[in-house]
């Protein structure tokens, strides 16, 4: 491709960062130093060179992580190496919140100001930081540190939270919660002084790792858990420990059964996707197996970014091997030989544990060219997102892996036929996959008896907000909302005041979900029962707001979230999310256009157009929580 690169050569450090990922350049034509003796009469390129586009996001990460931002020369070098036009690469780099295309301090605190954190003082953390460290984005006097606001970091059970990124030769990232402004500044200062902020280093013992799990999963160690059985009990860093706890029995069983029978078991289990769409997993796998086209791919969607959601993180951090095993079973069943695990960029601990798990599994012959001596070949690549909620939409996720902007594709065609790299693809959410080894061990029919007729199996919920013990909870489908909240220690309330009187509203399903009132506390948590009350389970968020909560502020934050996270591709979502946010701001300031009723009617029309005419689920649900809040009377008429 005749790409046009205008920038000067990248700095040695920038080149080193890219070369560490891609290896040295193959010739002077591909970014190496000029060598007319070898390159003067010949060059290769074309399809082979352009086929490396999917390494664009990893290469951008490499520079971001090493330097702290992506300069024009660094991008030019990446473009030469990967044969990507600079304008397109720039379009990709500017798509992601965690990538900087303007100079940024190397040490950054990304401070969550999203809905769960703001219930416990995130705005105060931000205003304290603005006062003591300076406005968001402004570098410190020594140029070493800065802080930025961030959407949900998925640490809601310990809110308020911050993510620290330290660029350098040995880049580090760590999520910390709870944390206040003093803590943030101390952490920044420590990193600036060159002290390491180890994520999961040798300093942390297995016992400490298990203890950490019990913070996120208060039930950890309880008997009777299925999905969370190993969390807090089995060292997530040890393959041996996983195998001793029954790990990989399911893969063995799958290989004995053969692909068709595996799909039959999964179909019999009545497993529905846990990412929000509740599509039957068995049917999806059968579709991929039957689809024309090769190669086929499996993709694990670990881009958990729905505000208030952190269940996948808990699984990935504390039981990473189950995902590796489940993806391997899925690939075996669908006929794929290559899998991608796409993890959101805000989960550095999960990333390091998954890397470790993949390496150990590969070394043990549980990934690779001849898995368990069966002749079945399968590899998993871990791909890290870079701060874009939209990439949790499956087709946006494909585009992100492919090195394009994370813009959703129109459906149909569906991924089963035309997915990653245009090939048949089975894409499943983390929690969905975590059920698969269970199904193979217990049998599909036995699994189907858990829960209810329409919602089979155990389910994870992310309980946060005004409850005594926020965290991940596993219950069988059909448990009532009230029982779930009791499991989480109930809602703090003055003596003699019932939960029903304390709770103002509960957000079910996340920012794309629905606000419900305490009158539905006895609703069983199933796909069908929530649908019946006009709500959704979504990603399993149960966020409780008591009567002290700033609900209008929460709604405005939700509106701002969708405005920020809209990819910008289609008009209803790109502009609709802006108009929705502006309208809520006018109502909050009590400066409506016309009457408040006029404004609410307009809000409804914007919502309907977004729901009906947007390309993907983001736009289609961007008004869901806000419209439900109007219906629930949270927004004063």
């Amino acid at each position, binding site marked *: 491709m005749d790409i046009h690169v205008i920038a000067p050569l990248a700095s040695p450090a920038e080149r080193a960062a890219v070369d560490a990922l891609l290896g040295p350049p193959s010739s002077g034509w591909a970014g190496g130093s000029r060598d007319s003796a070898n390159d003067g*009469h*010949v060059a290769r390129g074309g399809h082979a060179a352009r086929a490396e586009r999917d390494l664009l996001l990893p290469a951008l990460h490499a520079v971001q992580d090493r330097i702290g931002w992506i300069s024009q020369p660094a991008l030019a070098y990446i473009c030469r190496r990967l044969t990507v036009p600079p304008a397109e690469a720039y379009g990709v780099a500017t798509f992601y919140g965690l990538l900087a295309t303007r100079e940024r301090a190397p040490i950054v605190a990304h401070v969550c100001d999203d809905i769960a954190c703001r219930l416990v003082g995130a705005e105060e953390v931000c205003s304290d930081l603005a006062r003591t460290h300076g406005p968001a984005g402004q570098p410190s006097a020594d140029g070493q540190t800065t802080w930025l606001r961030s959407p949900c970091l998925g640490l809601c059970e310990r809110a308020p939270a911050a993510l620290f990124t330290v660029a350098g030769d040995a880049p580090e990232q760590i999520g910390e919660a709870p944390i206040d402004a003093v803590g943030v500044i101390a952490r920044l200062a420590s990193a600036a002084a060159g002290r390491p902020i180890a994520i999961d280093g040798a300093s942390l013992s297995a016992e400490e790792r298990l203890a950490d799990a019990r913070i996120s999963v208060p039930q950890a160690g309880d008997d009777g858990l299925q999905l969370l059985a190993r969390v807090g009990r089995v060292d997530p860093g040890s393959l041996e420990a996983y195998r001793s706890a029954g790990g990989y029995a399911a893969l063995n069983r799958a290989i004995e059964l053969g692909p068709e029978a595996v799909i039959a078991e999964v179909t019999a289990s009545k497993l529905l996707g846990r990412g929000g769409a509740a599509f039957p997993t068995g049917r999806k796998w059968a579709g991929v197996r039957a689809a024309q086209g090769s190669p086929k791919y499996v993709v694990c969607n670990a881009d958990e970014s729905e505000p208030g959601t952190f269940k996948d993180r808990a699984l990935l951090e504390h039981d990473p091997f189950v995902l590796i095993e489940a993806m391997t079973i899925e690939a075996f069943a669908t006929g794929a030989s290559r899998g991608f695990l796409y993890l959101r960029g805000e989960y550095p601990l999960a990333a390091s544990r998954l890397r470790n798990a993949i390496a150990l599994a590969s070394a043990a012959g549980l990934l690779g060219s001849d898995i368990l001596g069966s002749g079945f070949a399968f590899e998993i690549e871990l791909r890290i997102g870079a701060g874009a909620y939209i990439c949790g939409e499956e087709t946006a996720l494909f585009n992100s892996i492919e090195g394009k902007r994370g813009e959703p594709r129109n459906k149909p065609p569906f991924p089963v036929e035309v997915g990653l790299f245009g090939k048949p693809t089975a894409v499943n959410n983390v929690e969905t996959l975590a059920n698969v080894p269970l199904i193979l061990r217990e049998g599909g029919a036995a699994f189907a008896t858990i829960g209810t007729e329409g919602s089979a199996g155990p389910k994870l919920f992310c309980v946060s907000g005004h409850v005594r013990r926020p965290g991940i909870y596993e219950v069988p489908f059909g448990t009532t909302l009230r029982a779930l909240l009791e499991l989480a220690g109930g809602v703090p309330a003055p003596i003699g005041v019932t939960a029903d009187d304390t709770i103002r509203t509960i957000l079910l399903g996340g920012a794309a979900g629905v606000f419900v009132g305490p009158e539905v506390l006895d609703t069983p948590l199933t796909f069908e029962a929530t649908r019946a009350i006009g709500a959704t389970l979504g990603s399993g968020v149960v966020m409780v707001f008591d009567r002290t909560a700033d609900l209008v502020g929460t709604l405005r934050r939700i509106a701002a979230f969708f405005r920020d996270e809209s990819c910008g591709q289609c008009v209803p979502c790109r502009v609709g999310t802006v108009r929705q946010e502006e309208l809520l701001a006018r109502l909050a300031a009590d400066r409506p256009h016309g009457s408040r009723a006029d404004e609410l009617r307009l809000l409804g029309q914007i919502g309907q157009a977004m729901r009906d005419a947007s390309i993907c689920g983001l736009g289609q649900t961007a008004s869901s929580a806000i419209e439900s809040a109007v219906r629930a009377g949270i927004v004063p008429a």
Partner: protein
Amino acid sequence: MILWGSNARETHPIFFHHLLKGVNKGARLYTVDPRRTSSAEWSDGWLGLDVGSDIALANAIGREILAAGLENREFIARATSGIEEYRAKVESYTLEYAERETGVPAAMIRELAHAFASAPRAMICWTLGITEHHNGVDNVLALISLVLLTGHVGRYGSGVNPLRGQNNVQGGGDMGALPDRLPGFQHVENDELRAKFDQLWGVTVPPKRGWHLSGMFDAMERGDLCAVYVIGENPVQSEADQAKAIHLLSNLEFLVVQDIFLTKTAQLADVVLPASAAWAETEGTVTNSERRVQRVRRALAPPGLARDDLEIVVDLAQRMGGNWPATTPEAIWDELRMLSPVHAGMSYKRLEELGGLQWPCYDENHPGELFLHSRLWEDPVPGNRAPFIPVDHDPPVDRLDADFPIRLTTGRRLDSYNTGVQSAGYRSPLRRGESLDISPEDLARYGLADGELVRVVSRRGQISVAVRVDPSLRPGLTFMTLHFQDDVAVNLLTIDATDPKSGTAEFKATAIRIEKLKAAVRVP
């Protein structure tokens, strides 16, 4: 696809769109060009041969195809003649020999040979990199042999495709503006064909072929040609060895130039006839590179007293005593359709309705032919079999030596055109003026700064020009265009060694030396 001696990305941009559609659907592309052009950058493989070593490369590809048994034996046996002579000729063109002669690594030559021969469909496209050599016709024959060897001709998606450089160079040939042909490619020395013209025109067409352009200059030199009528051509600036061209044109007894501009050639003329711009101020047809006859239409009134070429010619004929009635473009076209079987089916009405038609189009029900030579796939083949014509490598006439160690080759840039008469008229942000493009290595070796003015000397002349670094060039290879002849007369350097068959000069291969000026002058 093989692009051979063609930078279509810049010289035929819209053709390249079509090519890239194929590439984007998975078609492989190889480029053979001394420079790593923007076309080459799109390629799966670039073969950066030394200027003028095309036959060494083509014959080596042919030999490798035969040695590997990848030739299409059924096609060769049925549709071609002369394979044994070809086999014998290419026997000595080993990959190692070709690597020595061309500079291209043997492995890459082998890769292209195998990719080309084993592709279900393959096509070779070329431009002036093949033809502007003292042996340009031989270069073409060497490429034709490759498609005959593999059967990549006469079938959809295959063939040899010379990309026409000018909007009606094909049409000019169609209409008989060739020294040996009447309209419709009917040979003037064939009595039977010529008789049709004699009869319809009521005159006796001279039965002998005429001179091609370089033949005319030879005739001027001999004194056999003393009066010339130039229509829409600027030989003062477009001919190789410019000093000689100006000398000959200036010494003519009578020179008439019909053009839309007062060109450098027109300035030498005894009579200048201002013409209309055919493409925007007249009605008529042109023929493009895919043999598609297309309508041009009048969108503007010509300025001043400028007149339609057709009117001028008819008036001239009247003044010379011919009884030529005033006519219309369509009437002339219909006369052509009576005389040229390959155009017979192309009424103006059909051309309008169908957006043009590709010849041959034998009657008004004929759809025109999407590609040529499909007859080669019939059994038996109607007419002659396609002959292999073996040729030998013969390096450029202007040899490199210690005095002239650098190879200069010429070509076009995207936004400009030929001698710049047309393209100078618009303000292109891409235009940088003329320069001697030079490799970074040579820039350093001569101790030059980018943009520094140098003297460029060939065996025929010398010019001053700024150097410009171009990483697509290797040491020893330089590049200039012909677009800015008023500023930098590149053709003072070029050689008029011409191909005896086509009359085309070897613009692509000049031996030069670069002289640093005493005081460095930097051209901004």
